[in-house]
């Protein structure tokens, strides 16, 4: 409990940008020059970790870091430069489209045989792969649905009601023992991992950091609310079939009841969330603001792009 209140320790730096931000948060050094972000690899370890650390101040913060730094103007200037570099790269690498229906349609078909991470884990994954997968995913799942809560004040009517209903379900529908982040902690215990929030940040690979950062980016900026909704839709629509494969992987390896339950619960819950996010959240937002279609599509395609990078990275690390 003390540990939770204190927040996790700051991570180890991975380059000049992250070293500067971390030193500044320790009151032990100067911030990096915001201009340095322009030369950094937008998907690389250094920029992504620096951005992740900036964003974490809006979630739980870090042990020994003054809470006031969340709104420190010079730090926000650096964060803005990092975000700009990341978002510009995404806009460049993900083709813009206003064909939202086509993009959604692409998510709603399932291959008979796929080649991604969940397919590998289903068929061949061993406990060591499942542990590594959980370590990476813990950067998001231990704060599951938190980044999406920020969009609520920016929606109205049907979109707001639908989004709030899904979030309520994600947060346990009034029951602390059903909060999805807590269910993931149960999965981690079954796999023999440490469930402390932020414990595995140092192990988080750059593509995983980028995936969490894109949620924080879309969640924290009102102008990107359409992209946040698109991102959320992409997660919910693709979750059920992928969770089925992961539940199978957990079962086949005898990972334990909580590990299996996290994914079986997501097969069932996300089959509902998918319907509500498409009908009410996307449908409602488009009724209110038809021009949002392009941003919603961007949120979906950017998410698929970053998920593919993460999957490729994990499969490459496992040499499969």
């Amino acid at each position, binding site marked *: 409990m003390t540990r939770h209140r204190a927040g996790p320790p700051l991570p180890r730096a991975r380059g000049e940008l992250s070293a500067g931000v971390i030193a500044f948060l320790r009151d032990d050094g100067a911030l990096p020059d915001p201009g340095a972000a322009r030369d950094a690899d937008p998907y690389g370890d250094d920029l992504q970790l620096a951005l992740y650390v900036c964003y974490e101040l809006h979630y739980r913060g870090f042990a020994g870091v003054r809470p006031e730094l969340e709104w420190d103007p010079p730090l926000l200037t650096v964060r803005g430069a990092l975000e700009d570099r990341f978002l510009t790269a995404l806009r460049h690498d993900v083709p813009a489209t206003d064909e939202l229906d086509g993009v959604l349609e*692409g*998510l*709603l*078909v*399932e*291959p*008979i*045989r*796929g*080649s*991604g*991470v*969940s397919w590998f884990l289903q068929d061949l994954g061993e406990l060591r792969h499942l542990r590594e997968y959980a370590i990476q995913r813990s950067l998001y799942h231990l704060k599951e649905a938190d980044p999406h809560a920020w969009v609520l004040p920016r929606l109205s009517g049907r979109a707001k009601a639908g989004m709030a*209903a899904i979030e*309520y*379900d994600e947060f346990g*529908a009034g029951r602390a023992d059903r909060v999805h982040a807590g269910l993931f902690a149960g999965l981690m215990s079954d796999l023999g991992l440490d469930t402390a929030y932020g414990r595995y940040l140092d192990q988080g690979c750059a593509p995983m950091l980028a995936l969490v950062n894109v949620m924080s980016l879309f969640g924290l900026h009102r102008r990107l609310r359409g992209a946040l909704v698109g991102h959320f839709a992409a997660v919910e629509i*693709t979750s*059920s*079939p*992928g969770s*089925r494969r992961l539940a199978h992987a957990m079962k086949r390896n005898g990972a334990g009841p909580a590990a299996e339950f996290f994914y*079986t619960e997501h*097969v*069932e*819950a996300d*089959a*509902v969330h*998918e*319907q*509500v996010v498409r*009908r009410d959240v996307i449908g409602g937002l488009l009724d209110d603001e038809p021009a949002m279609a392009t941003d919603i599509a961007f949120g979906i395609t950017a998410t*698929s792009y970053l*998920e*593919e990078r993460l*999957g490729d990275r994990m499969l490459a690390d496992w040499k499969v």
Partner: protein
Amino acid sequence: MPNSSEHPCRITIGDDGPLLVEGPVEVTCADGTVAVSDRFVVALCMCRRSRMYPWCDTSHRRRTQPGEKSRRDTG
């Protein structure tokens, strides 16, 4: 939300996919088994392919053949 004439249980029928019913629900299946859920909405499988019948597990989705264009073969 309690069922009443002012707040009837809302059911949504789509083109394909599950039937959406406001929860909580108790469902009696053809074989007599009873499934209960207190989720705010439940998705009832209509295609009968679900492996968690009576709940939808998205098995109604169109399946693509190897080589056929699909964004989701990498998930």
